[in-house]
């Protein structure tokens, strides 16, 4: 075995991996276009009902029309704003509550079953109640978004806090620290990666909550657009809403992923 051949094995390996990576991306793109192509073709040739299923070209036209008269941006802006607000609130409230529970173990023990119930309760069941209490407005929508994400955040973070190595906590005490140092020097920094993965989940949950809220209590936003479209049987509006939601979900997830990369560096 010559050394050169060992090098070229490594090079071959790298090349194979690169090719594989490119193929995966290629197939992702191809499958998307194939799906869109079949959808377009079948709806034009009446294999599927174009009225119910709409078609990519019609959705594209709808998006362009709505972009021209600015309504699209208004709906997107409303939904995005509500989502970011309820996401932020769910994280802030979640972190604060988890810290309070960590400070008082007894409080945590007392509250735990309630949290578990609230966490597994389908929050959409609360929405009609919230409309009565808070009115059919943005407040209700944001609260639905928060309620969907906040209980899981508290439970997960609190569990994460407790899983911090007891010896690391002892270290702080041996250095003369108090409970607040344990919190600020160990507990919080060591749960940052967990917080980021909770953020990833919460951004999606907030979006779900906001759309549910908009179904019930809005006259703008993508949730409203979808419900309105289905009520007036304009399925292209519904489809447009869904497609735009997909893009928003992807965008928001990517933002958090970038944040995660920056933190782990």
């Amino acid at each position, binding site marked *: 075995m010559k050394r050169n051949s060992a090098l070229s094995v490594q090079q071959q390996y790298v090349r194979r991996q690169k090719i594989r990576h490119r193929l995966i991306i290629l197939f992702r793109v191809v499958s998307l276009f194939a799906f869109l192509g079949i959808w377009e073709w079948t709806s034009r040739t009446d294999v599927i009902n174009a009225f119910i299923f709409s078609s990519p070209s019609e959705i594209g036209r709808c998006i362009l029309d709505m972009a021209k008269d600015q309504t699209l941006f208004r709906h997107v802006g409303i939904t995005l704003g509500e989502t970011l607000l309820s996401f932020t609130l769910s994280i802030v409230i979640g972190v604060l509550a988890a810290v309070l529970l960590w400070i008082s173990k007894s409080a945590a023990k007392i509250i735990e079953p309630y949290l578990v119930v609230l966490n597994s309760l389908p929050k959409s069941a609360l929405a009609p109640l919230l409309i009565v209490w808070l009115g059919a407005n943005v407040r209700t929508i944001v609260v639905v978004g928060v309620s969907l994400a906040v209980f899981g955040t508290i439970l997960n973070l609190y569990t994460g806090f407790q899983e911090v*190595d007891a*010896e*690391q906590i*002892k*270290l*702080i*005490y*041996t*250095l*003369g*620290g108090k409970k607040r*140092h344990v919190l600020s*020097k*160990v507990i919080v*920094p*060591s749960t*940052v990666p967990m917080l980021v993965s909770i953020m990833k989940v919460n951004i999606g949950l907030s979006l779900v909550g906001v759309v549910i809220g908009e179904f019930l209590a809005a006259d703008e936003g993508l949730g409203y657009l979808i419900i309105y479209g289905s009520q007036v049987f304009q399925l292209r509006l519904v489809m447009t809403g869904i497609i735009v939601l997909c893009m928003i979900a992807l965008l928001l997830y990517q933002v958090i992923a970038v944040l995660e990369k920056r933190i782990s560096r």
Partner: protein
Amino acid sequence: MEAFLCPSLVQFQEVNFAYHSMDGETPVLSNISFSVREGEFLSMVGPSGCGKSTILSLIAGLLEPETGSIFFPKQEKTGVQANIGYMLQRDHLFEWRSVLRNVTLGLEIRKQKTKENVRKAEVLLEKYGLEKFMDAKPSQLSGGMRQRAALIRTLALNPELLLLDEPFSALDYQTRLSVGDDIGTIIRKEKKTAVLVTHDLAEAISLGTRVLVMSKRPTHILCDLPLDFDPEMTPLEKRNTGQFQQYFQQIWKELKRDET
């Protein structure tokens, strides 16, 4: 013999301690009395699970004795605040901090992170071969370097008394020997009083100037053995002497007798 003339830093008087759980009471220490004298390196050796670490936590003030008392003749305050440095089994260097910021963690907590004190910590890092790693992440250090960094984190607070809780047990044998040597030398150079807890007889003898042999639980002191080595010898050199073998045999017998 000189050590007997030195004032003691810590005195245990008939200290008893037990752990409590719903399953019952586990007595850990029974009537422990001893003192740590200034300038000595006291090794406590005993079987795993005896209350050695508990003794350190009691000295550090992390636990309170059930009965009996602990005096600090030289100090008014007690506990960790009383300038006691505590080195744990594992280094627990935080990955989200650089080595230097790990080392100055204690200063940060005690609000003593002055330029002067940070400089002192830097000097210690330089002195003990970590100057190139000040801004590195702990994961870039070898096991031995991590342990040295952990010791410097303790020394940065300039403690009068150092408590070492099996600080080498997480290392592989070879590293363990050389780190033991390093740390023993550092402690002697910095002129600190130290209490080392270990279940490794050889470690206890090679590092200590006096050995307390502890029984199994509930722990009492089996014997108090002053060691008479040439103070200039390093721990590794001590391991090769005849005296070392004698002490080893003596302690071994005590521990064996306790087992039966």
